[in-house]
Structure formats: structure tokens, C-alpha cells
């Protein structure tokens, strides 16, 4: 149930190869997140798995069966689209029942499953409404409901939360994670938001221009990014990169240090700089520090409140044990 393998899969649109040969293994029950900047091929990869696009070459197997030639309807996967793609002319009940109707289940069974799904998703009161009469979050839940009732081998989500406002997004994020715990079904989730990736995933796949940069658990990626791209993409605020003299001292082309791994002091430290902007969040303070000679700008995160203002001189001391070194190819030196 829900073991998906991609072998040497490629995809070209005309002349342009969007996905160069790619291998990927997704285990049963895993929550896998595809993350990467816009246009890197996340949606394309998901649609290849769904069968909405043909692979240009390579093979896809689902639960050991070759699926490359199988049409989307027969792959046993369910997909939740960014736009929700609800059927506007059907009530919520009919929307959720649609896959069951297509599978020609009898009406009693259809109703049973729809009601069960509605209960899980808190949609019971809205079953007779049309999608147009629902809020964004409710629509999202209907789309998920439509996916659940089929009892698919795996769920595919394409940026399902990007149309929601920030507060709702956090809520739905938790709901989807919870759903995953309950159903214990494979989920593949596409996002460009690294916070979603870090918080939800069992396994993150970082994509860059169609190439998998690294696959691993969130903390693996955080602590041991394989290269500069992953290091820069995972973590918020972004990792600081320093080139030149300071890097050479450590036998590297470039060194990286996360904002939370830098100590700040008003008296003394390794590097001297002046505060450009300071952002006070209450729980944390983010400082953007100008540091001539080392790096033009450096972001630093200090726990709690920190009384520094524009123009103040500060001293920074990176935590040497948390430093990342990168070679000329951008690969991390272990």
C-alpha cells in the first residue's frame, strides 16, 4: 500500500528538459515533501506520479506494479489541487461522492463513506452546500474529503495551502499532519514553503532545476546539508554565507553559519560590525548586521529581546562546531 518508485524518470516539454534523469523511492506510509524554488519542477514531478503527464523516459512503479503506462484513474492515487478543483455544480456531498460514483459503488456504501469522511473533516453541516458557499478552508477540506473516500494508495498534494491566509494555513497544516497520523497512508506534498516542509515531512526531497539536491529527514537536512543550495534553502532565516579570507582560514571556498548559531555581544567577539536593521519579534530578535571586510550583510538571531539599534557597534562570534564548510563546487566538506 503506497510504495512508489521512480527509476531514471525524465520529462521534457518539447526541447526543454525540465526533469533530468531522477531516481526516488517513497516508502509506504511516509509523508514526503517536495520542496524547491518556483519553477524547479515540483508540480511536474507530482503530475508524473499522478499520471497527468507522460514521462519522457524511465519507469514508475506503484506497489511493485509498473504504472508508467497506467492512466491516472487506474493508479489508485488521489490528488488535492492548489485551486481545490471542486466541481462547482455539485453539492459538497456529491463532490465527495464523485470518485465513488465513478467506481460504481452502491448508494448506501457511498453515503456511508461520505458521511464518515465528513465527520473526520468537520464538514457534516455543510454537506448540502455548493463549493461557492464555503470558505477557503472548508473548500480545502472538501478537496481532501474527496481524496479520502477513495482510500487511495497515496495522497498527492500540490501546494494545497497556498491559497489560504497565514492563520488558516497553520491550522490546516496541523490538520493534514493529523490526518496522516490517523490514516497512515503515503502522502506526497509539494510546497515551496520550507517551514511547511520542515514541520510536516518524514522525508524532504529538495529539488533545484529538476534535480534532486538531497533527500533526507528535516533534521538531517538542517544539520548536514549536502551542498550550499540545500543549506541556503532549509532553515529560516537563511544561512549566512561568507567567502574570502575567513573561508580560506578554514580551508574552504565558502563557509556557512546559521543566524541562530552566532553569538552577539556589545563588548567583544571575532567579527565587528554595525547594526543595520533590527526586527523585534518578542520571542526573538533578528539583527541585520553590516560587516565590512567579512560579509556585507549577516543575519543574526538572538533569543528574547536584545537592545541594539541602528548604527550600534556589535561583535559576533560564530559557534565553530556548527560551521559548515563548502568547496569550490558548493559541496559541503564533512
Amino acid at each position, binding site marked *: 500500500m503506497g510504495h512508489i518508485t521512480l527509476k531514471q524518470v525524465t520529462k521534457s516539454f518539447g526541447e526543454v528538459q525540465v526533469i533530468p534523469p531522477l531516481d526516488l523511492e517513497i516508502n509506504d506510509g511516509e509523508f514526503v515533501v517536495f520542496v524547491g524554488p518556483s519553477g524547479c519542477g515540483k508540480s511536474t514531478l507530482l503530475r508524473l506520479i499522478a499520471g497527468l503527464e507522460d514521462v519522457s523516459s524511465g519507469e514508475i512503479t506503484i506497489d511493485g506494479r509498473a504504472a508508467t503506462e497506467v492512466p491516472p484513474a487506474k493508479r489508485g492515487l488521489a490528488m488535492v*489541487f492548489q*485551486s481545490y478543483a471542486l466541481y462547482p455544480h455539485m453539492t459538497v456531498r456529491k463532490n465527495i461522492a464523485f470518485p465513488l460514483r465513478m467506481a460504481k459503488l452502491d448508494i448506501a456504501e457511498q453515503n456511508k463513506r461520505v458521511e464518515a469522511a465528513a465527520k473526520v473533516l468537520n464538514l457534516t453541516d455543510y454537506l448540502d452546500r455548493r463549493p461557492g458557499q464555503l470558505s477557503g478552508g472548508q473548500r480545502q477540506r472538501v478537496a481532501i474529503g474527496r481524496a479520502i473516500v*477513495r482510500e487511495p494508495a497515496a495522497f498527492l498534494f500540490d501546494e494545497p495551502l497556498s491559497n489560504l491566509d497565514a492563520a488558516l494555513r497553520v491550522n490546516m497544516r496541523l490538520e493534514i499532519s493529523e490526518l496522516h497520523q490517523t490514516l497512515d497512508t503515503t502522502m506526497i506534498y509539494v510546497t515551496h514553503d520550507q517551514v511547511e516542509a520542515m514541520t510536516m515531512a518524514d522525508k524532504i526531497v529538495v529539488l533545484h532545476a529538476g534535480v534532486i539536491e538531497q533527500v533526507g529527514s528535516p533534521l538531517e537536512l538542517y544539520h548536514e546539508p549536502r551542498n550550499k543550495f540545500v543549506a541556503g534553502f532549509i532553515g529560516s532565516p537563511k544561512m549566512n554565507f561568507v567567502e574570502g579570507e575567513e573561508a580560506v582560514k578554514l580551508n574552504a571556498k565558502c563557509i556557512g553559519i546559521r543566524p541562530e548559531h552566532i553569538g552577539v555581544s556589545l563588548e567583544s567577539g571575532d567579527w565587528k560590525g554595525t547594526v543595520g536593521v533590527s526586527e523585534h519579534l518578542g520571542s526573538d530578535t533578528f539583527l541585520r548586521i553590516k560587516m565590512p571586510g567579512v560579509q556585507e550583510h549577516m543575519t543574526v538571531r538572538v533569543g528574547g529581546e536584545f537592545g541594539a539599534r541602528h548604527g550600534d557597534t556589535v561583535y559576533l562570534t560564530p559557534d565553530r562546531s556548527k560551521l559548515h564548510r563548502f568547496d569550490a563546487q558548493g559541496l559541503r566538506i564533512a
Partner: protein
Amino acid sequence: MARAVTTQRKALNTAIAWSIGLLIFFPILWTILTSFKTEAEAIANPPVFLFFDWTLENYAVVQERSNYMRFLTNSVILAGVSTILGILIAVPAAWSMAFVPSKRTKDILLWMLSTKMLPAVGVLYPIYLLCIQLGVLDNRLALIVILMLINLPIIVWMLYTYFREIPGEILEAARMDGASLKDEILYVLTPMAIPGIASTLLLNFILAWNEAFWTLNLTSVNAAPLTAFIASYSSPEGLFFAKLSAASTMAIAPILIMGWFSQKQLVRGLTFGAVK
């Protein structure tokens, strides 16, 4: 532009616009009024407008004399069947072009448009000859096919523009939900496109109803619709204004009402989406 306009200005606009509107509409109004007059009142000088003896006699006479019902039936059948047939053929084609576009889609659409631009008179004799040889001159089926073909490009175009407004993701969702192509079109696309399909139906019904080249040249008795019925009044024996008006009113009334519902679609349908 949410600025207040003076009432005088608005009143002036209203007066001018209504005068011109009524002037343009006058021939139709006059025809309808005349159809309720006696023949003497119809040609009275000075003309009488509203204060005459309203009578339905002309309608009775026209019905009796010219077997109006047969022409009407033909018009309904020709326009109705040809439009529905056209839509049945055009829906799949428009689906293909809107949702699975290829490099050739644009060329095919433009080519279809070009067939609509082919002057009928240029192919009059071949069609006439084919009808004779197939024994279908003055035959409803033949005319249905011809009317369907001359409107097919417009039907495809209109449906195409409506379908393009439907997000492809919804059809993909249906596909993921296990819908076959037939289910996808039947249960998802068609219900969503109902307003567009209805407008297409309406406009093309009107166009087929008013078509007056092939219906005049390829019919005589059996298949003749209202266009031919009216044309028969151009012979001198039909020169009675009141009766002519009654016949005309009967031929245009249903279509005028439909036309009012389809003004918006008219623009889309006849400019091939080039004016929005």
C-alpha cells in the same frame, strides 16, 4: 466614473437615445401594429397608429391560406435539429482544442473560421447538383445537414471560448477521481458549461432560423421554412400590407424574443472572441 451626472444631462441622454432607439425599431413596431389592422387601415393616409379597430383577422387568413403551420414546423425542425446536431459534434472538438491544445489547434480554429467565410454562391451549383443527384432537393434532412455545416465553425468557436474559461485542473481532478473521458465530459464539463452551451444553442438557432440563401435555393414545398414562406409574399398576389405584416410578425416574433436573450453572446459568437 462613479461621478454624479446632472439630472438634466441624464434626461437629455434618455430623450435622444429613446428617440433614436424607437426610430430604429420603428419598422418592426409598424409591422406588428399593421398586422392588427384591416387592409384599408393599413394603407390609410395619414397612417393610423394606435386608434384603429384591432383585429386578429389577418392572422386567421394567413394561417388558412398558406398553411403557415407547415412552414413554422419546418423552421423549428431545421433550426432546432441542425443546432443540436452541431453542438453534439462541436462539444468533443471544442473539448480537445480547449483542454488538449497542440501546436495545430490555432491553425485548425482559423481554418474552421475560413470555411465560414466561403461565399455560398461560390459553391451553389455543386450543392444544388449533389442534392438533385442524391434526390434530396427540397428535403429537410439535407437542409439540416447544410445548416449544421454552415454554423458548425461558429458553434465550435463559441464553445471553445467558453470551455477555455473552465480551469483544466477540474477536469484533471475528475480524471484522478476515476472518471473516464465520457464521464468527464458528461458529468463535469457539460454541467459546468451549461450557460455557454445554452447561449451557443440560442444564437445558432437564430442564425439557422434566419438563414436565407440555402433555404430559398434548395427548397420548394416540403422542406420550405418561414424564410421561403415570407419570400412567397413578394409576388404581387401577396400584396396586402396587413396580411404581409401578420405573416412577418409570426415569422420574427419568436426569434426577436430569443434574440433579446442572446445579445451578449452575439458579440462573442460573431467576432470569434476578437472583441470582448
